[in-house]
């Protein structure tokens, strides 16, 4: 009945009626229809319906809205010609949220790091200053006392000495007589944050040299700016090249072990996790043993740093006297006149009849007799 039957052309009648057959096939179907009443009837039915339906006239499209449509098209064409708004690609639409998330994440990390760096505890600020002071004083021929602990009984006098001895810092920012306690709130301002970061960069740059030479624990390279500053500065004396302890960033607590030192070092450079801050602080005894090792190694500057850390740890009684006495000797040996004077006076004040007081007295006399090498800033 269908293609295989005698009416194989029946399926093509539709195409034939609508002139969609090639000429040869159309002729074959036409010949078949002439001899086939069934196909002829089907074809006649199709043509009859078409004739009836042809009575529907063609309607003209309304003109309403044509002007606005053309105006809209013209505007769109202008945009296309200008190419001002390229069609967003699918991958752009997908990437946009991911890039936004990445940008927010980076911003969050930066903010965290900045906050971590610029809002340290008061003790941390003092510790940074003391480190800075010791490093700068080594560079400077004029002796200057380092910064003491914040909460120690002798903190006030040391603070004054510290603020007056911050050679480079004073040049940049603070007046010589300005107390560090008064300047501590300022450290939280934007300007102070920038300065603090700059000074920390300098400090870290100073730590780079001993790390490279002495095989100290590896630390990330200092920023280029800091390296440039160090390069332009006069070469530091051997004492400045000694690896300084990296306890400052832990809130003034010295690190007892090498592992802690590394962790604190990472923190100071903004790469450490917050969890590493919560390590237990070493005791004054441990810090004094660190100072002993530094003394045996001939690193008096490092010894001073450990001794200051021991002061921060809160030594009691004879231990405090020993710390001040050793500070008196170490600062004097380093030529840090003001710091040495303060330490020695402290020893004399604490135990006037002790052997430490007598040694301090001798050092005081020696320092008072000796002329100042250069005016302190």
């Amino acid at each position: 009945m269908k293609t295989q039957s005698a009416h194989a052309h029946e399926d093509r009648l539709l195409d034939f009626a609508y002139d969609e057959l090639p000429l040869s096939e159309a002729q074959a179907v036409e010949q078949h229809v002439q001899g086939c009443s069934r196909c002829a009837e089907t074809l006649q039915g199709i043509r009859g319906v078409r004739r009836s339906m042809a009575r529907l006239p063609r309607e003209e499209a309304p003109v309403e809205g044509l002007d606005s449509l053309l105006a809209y098209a013209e505007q769109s064409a202008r945009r296309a010609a200008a190419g001002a708004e390229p069609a967003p690609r699918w991958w752009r639409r997908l990437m946009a949220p991911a890039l936004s998330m990445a940008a927010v994440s980076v911003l969050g990390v930066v903010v965290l790091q900045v906050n971590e760096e610029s809002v340290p505890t008061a003790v941390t600020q003092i510790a940074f200053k003391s480190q800075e002071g010791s490093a700068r004083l080594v560079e400077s021929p004029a002796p200057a006392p380092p910064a003491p602990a914040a909460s120690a009984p002798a903190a006030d006098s040391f603070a004054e000495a510290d603020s007056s001895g911050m050679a480079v810092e004073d040049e940049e920012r603070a007046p010589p007589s300005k107390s560090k306690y008064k300047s501590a709130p300022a450290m939280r301002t934007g300007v102070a944050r920038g300065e603090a970061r700059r000074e920390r960069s300098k400090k870290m740059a100073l730590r780079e040299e001993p790390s490279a030479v002495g095989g100290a624990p590896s630390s990330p390279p200092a920023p280029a700016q800091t390296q440039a500053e160090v390069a332009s500065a006069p070469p530091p004396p051997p004492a400045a090249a000694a690896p300084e302890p990296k306890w400052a960033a832990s809130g003034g607590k010295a690190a007892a072990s090498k592992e802690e030192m590394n962790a604190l070092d990472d923190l100071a450079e903004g790469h450490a996790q917050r969890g590493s801050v919560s390590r237990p602080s070493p005791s004054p005894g441990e810090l004094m043993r660190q100072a002993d090792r530094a003394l045996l190694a001939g690193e008096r500057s490092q010894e001073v740093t450990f001794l200051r850390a021991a002061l921060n740890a809160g030594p009691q009684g004879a231990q405090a006297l020993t710390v001040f006495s050793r500070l008196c000797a170490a600062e004097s040996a380093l030529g840090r006149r003001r710091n040495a004077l303060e330490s020695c006076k402290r020893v004399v004040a604490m135990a006037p009849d002790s052997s430490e007081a007598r040694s301090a007295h001798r050092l005081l006399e020696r320092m008072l007799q000796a002329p100042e090498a250069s005016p302190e800033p």
Partner: protein
Amino acid sequence: MLAFRAGDARAFSVLVRKHRTPVFNFILRFTGHRARAEDVLQETWLKVVRSAPDYETKAKFTTWLYTIARNLCVDSARKESYRQTASLDSPRGAAGEDDGRPLSEVLRDEGASPDRGAYNARVRPLIERALAALPEEQREVFVLREYNGMPFKDISEVTGVSENTVKSRMRYALEGLRRRLNELGVDGDLAEDGRTVAG
């Protein structure tokens, strides 16, 4: 279309002049409602403008254009689904031409007029109703083929079905129309000139 996509607004004007009326007739006969057809026509051309950047040269413009129009017609029909095609036996609306009488009675009353032009004008509503009575998938195929002269292959692209399915629907549409026209007394042989629209 490529010229318009490149920023030539005049090219769009040419396209509109060429295709606006055929597209409108397709929409009008698909929807069977003039006001809706005008709305769909405007939507169709707006969508052409908006979709110009997505136009691919491998597609015929007419196929692409009628695909847009057809999809909008389908959407419109869904929205207006409450509108049922009026039955030939149901009373027509008060605004109708025949005072609410069934179409079969109207035709019997008028009879075969010697004025074929008048006869054609009188049977036109019947033809429209016969067309509107077709199922939507048959109606769209018939209209595209009969009134817009679109080959079955292109209709298959517009409607998204195979060419065989298109032809099958076309056969059903022709058979349905023939039966309905016979019921209405509309004889194709009485047509004025015996010609078809697109054929």
